[in-house]
């Protein structure tokens, strides 16, 4: 029975509810003037319609536990994403939902004289709105994580420096994840520098790569092969013990690629191969 009322209420009083809610949102000041009035109006109207659907499709006696439909989730994700982008806090974002309570309860109160029905209705709709509010809070957090992640990736995209360590020796310290678009950039800049400098050896240091899975390994091996075609040998350094063990179990074979625990070890090998030797000054003096 109670469904009929709320679902009906949301439909029959749609426009007055919308007006009252918009007034409430403006008053509670959570909009921060960052969202255009027209957008806010559109979003609020859409929410009322989706809520009406949710209630109509739900259990007729207890719609508080109605499933949150895919459309509703998509809608909430989208408005949350916008707000996260604008720098809203999770509670400011959730206030969008919670601020609907006052106008809704008011409408419920005036819709019937039956106090028990009023209480039931308020309780049920409150539970439902709370669930939607919680969903928004979680969605907001995920959106923030996504934004941070993108920023990190943009940063990483910028920082793939190929450094010259010595005549004929290049080093490529990789930091972060090796997803495919980034690997492409890294590979290209390494190959360019090999040609430019005529280097014989390139050290790829993966100390800063947290996980080496099959895709990462494949990208590394491709880079090594391409470098070979340009006439340079690669040494992979910075493979930490736990990563070495994991790669072995995974079944990845690095073939004839030279690997070293540290960049320093790799550098030593590189010097030997290019015909240099490092010696302490005291020992040189002694030779003299």
């Amino acid at each position: 029975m109670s469904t009929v009322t709320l679902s009906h209420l949301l439909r029959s009083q749609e426009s007055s509810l919308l007006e009252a809610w918009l007034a409430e949102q403006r008053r509670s000041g959570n909009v921060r003037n960052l969202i255009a009035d027209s957008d806010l109006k559109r979003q609020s109207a859409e929410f009322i319609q989706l809520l009406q659907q949710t209630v109509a499709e739900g259990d007729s006696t207890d719609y508080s536990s109605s499933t949150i439909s895919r459309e509703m989730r998509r809608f909430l994700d989208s408005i949350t994403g916008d707000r996260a982008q604008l720098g809203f806090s999770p509670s400011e974002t959730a206030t969008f939902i919670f601020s609907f309570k006052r106008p809704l309860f008011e409408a419920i109160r005036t819709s019937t004289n039956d106090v028990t029905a009023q209480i039931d209705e308020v309780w049920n709709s409150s539970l439902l709105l709370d669930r939607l509010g919680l969903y928004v809070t979680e969605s907001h957090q995920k959106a923030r994580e996504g934004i941070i992640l993108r920023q990190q990736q943009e940063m990483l995209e910028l920082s793939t420096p190929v450094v010259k360590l010595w005549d004929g020796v290049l080093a490529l310290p990789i930091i972060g994840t090796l997803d495919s678009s980034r690997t492409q950039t890294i590979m290209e800049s390494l190959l360019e520098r090999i040609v430019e400098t005529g280097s014989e050896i390139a050290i790829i240091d993966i100390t800063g790569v947290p996980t080496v899975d099959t895709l990462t390994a494949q990208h590394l091996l491709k880079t090594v092969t391409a470098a070979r075609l340009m006439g340079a040998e690669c040494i992979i350094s910075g493979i930490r013990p736990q990563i070495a063990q994991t790669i072995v179990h995974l079944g990845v074979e690095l073939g004839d690629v030279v690997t070293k625990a540290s960049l320093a070890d790799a550098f030593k090998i590189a010097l030997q191969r290019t015909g240099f030797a490092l010696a302490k000054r005291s020992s040189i003096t002694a030779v003299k």
Partner: protein
Amino acid sequence: MEILQSDVLQIRQPEDIVLVRTAVRKIAIASKLGLVDQTKLVTAASEIARNTLDYGLGGEVRVDMVRDARTGVRLTFTDEGPGIPDLERAMTDGWTSGKGMGLGLSGTRRLMDEFQIASKVGEGTTVTIAKWSR
């Protein structure tokens, strides 16, 4: 077996795989897995999450901290993709239907303490893996 903590993560785009790895590492540390086991679990999660995205056309993973005799982490990946027609072949080292190394599934089985896969053509795939603290 008791579930101490549980979370569900969506796998819809490449960035989600990074989030899965981060979440799995966090729970592996909280479950007192050693550094090597953490690395194995995170790597396995990365493999299966990528399969879920690339072949399963997206899905989700449930991340559970569990307790039996010991504590551990159990991950359940599900997708509603095309499924795997020949499981034995898919589990073979080096077999890939794409451009991979064909080591994701078979390698993951070697990395984990527990590994289960169920798949039905046209319905989807579920992979469950677990690693226990020592």
